[in-house]
């Protein structure tokens, strides 16, 4: 990776700008009015359940698909009309693709480097990605994780200003996943903007500066990971085993309460800081002892389930 000057102050223009993007397949909308802007130098995550329209959105950004409506700009250029210039600054890792089975790792890197006027040196890249032992191995003989790492290397070999990584660490073992996360952090540190499609909460929480949660073709929320957690209904989770049953009416009347769950003798409540104080007051007032009391912050997982309404404890709140 070439060191480069910070570009954050280069100007107000976002690196990727998606405005009211729409795309249907056979009359069924896959992307239904998605808008977001990725700023220079940030890691921007697109998070969503399967079939939410994440991949279609980034494929439009990559110029692989022509939008039905809406506007996309990558460094100010239209990815369809200006494909060649966009492709020079945009590195891409597709969710599903392969290479010619008999092409070796070295040949693939040399080939893809040849497409760019000023490619990155691929040797340090292969070392970072743990591929230096596989340079003469044919693509067809690589393991799933090695193929994935090669595609990450190919996305970076053109020394891009922005990379789009779709399901980056799928198929990687936990160790390789963590190494890859470190690599993404290094990429960001070198000034490259990253658009990351993922369904791993941990990955999104660790890597992303901001996240757009996409659900059923629309942006359900757009915020920092911490902001998403904060704004979810049950940002704080309180769980304990009460020494005596609690009055259900009093529990349901707790301020800020988002959900209640009983499992065996254990009670799990989610809500706000206010809920925590109210629970403790309630316990003290009714002389109930709380065994194994735990107060934890909700994770991005909880926020995600809350936002996309797929399932989760929030649905158990009685109206």
């Amino acid at each position, binding site marked *: 990776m070439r060191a480069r000057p910070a570009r954050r102050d280069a100007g107000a223009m976002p690196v990727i700008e998606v405005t009211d993007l729409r795309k249907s397949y056979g009359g069924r909308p896959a992307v239904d009015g998605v808008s977001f802007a990725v700023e220079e130098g940030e890691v921007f995550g697109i998070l969503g359940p399967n079939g939410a329209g994440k991949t279609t959105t980034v494929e439009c950004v990559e110029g692989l698909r022509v939008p039905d409506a809406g506007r996309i700009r990558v460094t100010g250029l239209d990815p369809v009309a200006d494909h*060649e210039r966009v*492709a020079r600054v945009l590195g891409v890792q597709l969710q599903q693709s392969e290479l010619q089975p*008999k092409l070796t790792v070295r040949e693939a890197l040399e080939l893809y480097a040849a*497409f760019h006027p000023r490619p990155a040196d691929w040797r340090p890249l292969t070392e970072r990605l743990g591929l230096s032992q596989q340079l003469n191995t044919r693509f067809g003989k690589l393991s799933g994780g090695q193929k994935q790492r090669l595609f990450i290397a*190919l996305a970076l070999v053109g020394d891009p200003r922005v990379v789009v990584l779709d399901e980056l660490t799928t198929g990687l073992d936990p160790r390789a996943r963590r190494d890859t996360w470190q690599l993404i952090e290094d990429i960001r540190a070198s000034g490259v903007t990253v658009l990351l499609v993922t369904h791993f909460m941990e990955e999104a929480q660790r890597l992303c500066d901001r996240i757009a949660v996409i659900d059923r073709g629309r942006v359900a929320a757009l915020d920092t990971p911490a902001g998403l957690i904060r704004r979810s209904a049950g940002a704080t989770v309180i769980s304990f085993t009460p020494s005596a049953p609690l009055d259900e009416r009093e529990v349901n009347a707790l301020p800020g309460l988002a959900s209640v769950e009983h499992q065996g003798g254990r009670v799990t409540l989610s809500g706000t800081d206010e809920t925590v104080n109210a629970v403790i007051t309630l316990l003290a007032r009714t002389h109930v002892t709380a065994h194994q009391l735990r107060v934890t912050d909700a994770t991005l997982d909880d926020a995600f389930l809350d936002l996309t309404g797929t399932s989760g404890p929030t649905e158990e709140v009685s109206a």
Partner: protein
Amino acid sequence: MIASVFHPAVLRAEIRLFRREPGHLFWIMLFPALLLGILGSIPSFREADPSLGGLRAVDVYVPVTVLLGVIVAGVQGMPQTLTGYREHGILRRMATTPVRAAALLSAQMLVFGGAALVSALLALAVGRLAFDVRLPGQPVGYLLALLLAALACLALGALLSALSRTTKVATAVGSAALFPAMFCAGVWLPVQAMPDLLACVVGWTPFGAAAEALGDAAAGDWPGWTHLAVTAAWTVLLTAAAARWFRWE
């Protein structure tokens, strides 16, 4: 702009990959010359035959085997490879680079077209060296007919790939197209030896017409314009159809 439809690095990689396919090397490059060698070793094939206008069967079979390489490359080799590239997202991956997937299509055409020409040279060399077959009397006309036949065949290959969703289908469709194409080229019975009506019908097919054109040029005449026009018309038609239906993913 030209770099997006033709790229030397893509061509180099595809040549390298072609050399790693023993099946292609054998069936496209060696098999036609080998077949000529086998046919030529039959003694009766080396005797002048009045029904062939005094030519020996082996003389007539040189253009046939030249065409055979073209047909195997265009109908069996290219559609399979290209369909596999599409099926496995290789074209898609290439489409996200500044070079675009068209560079892969053009490289495939050049590689298989080039292999067919090498195969043709080999067949000519075997004919000349082993069986004393005279080299084409009208080399320019011969080359023109051969190039037209190769273009028609590559266009047919692109069309077959366009119509096949998977490599399996491409293989099946390719095999189905291979035998009629070989028949028209005269592998079983050279066009010159076919009954008039059959020869007339076959003369309207791309490979029948190409076989006639090559036969004319081998004998030292300028290939008939009708034959060249028929091959060229097929090339245009097949290219248009391939362009209409070809999908990158």
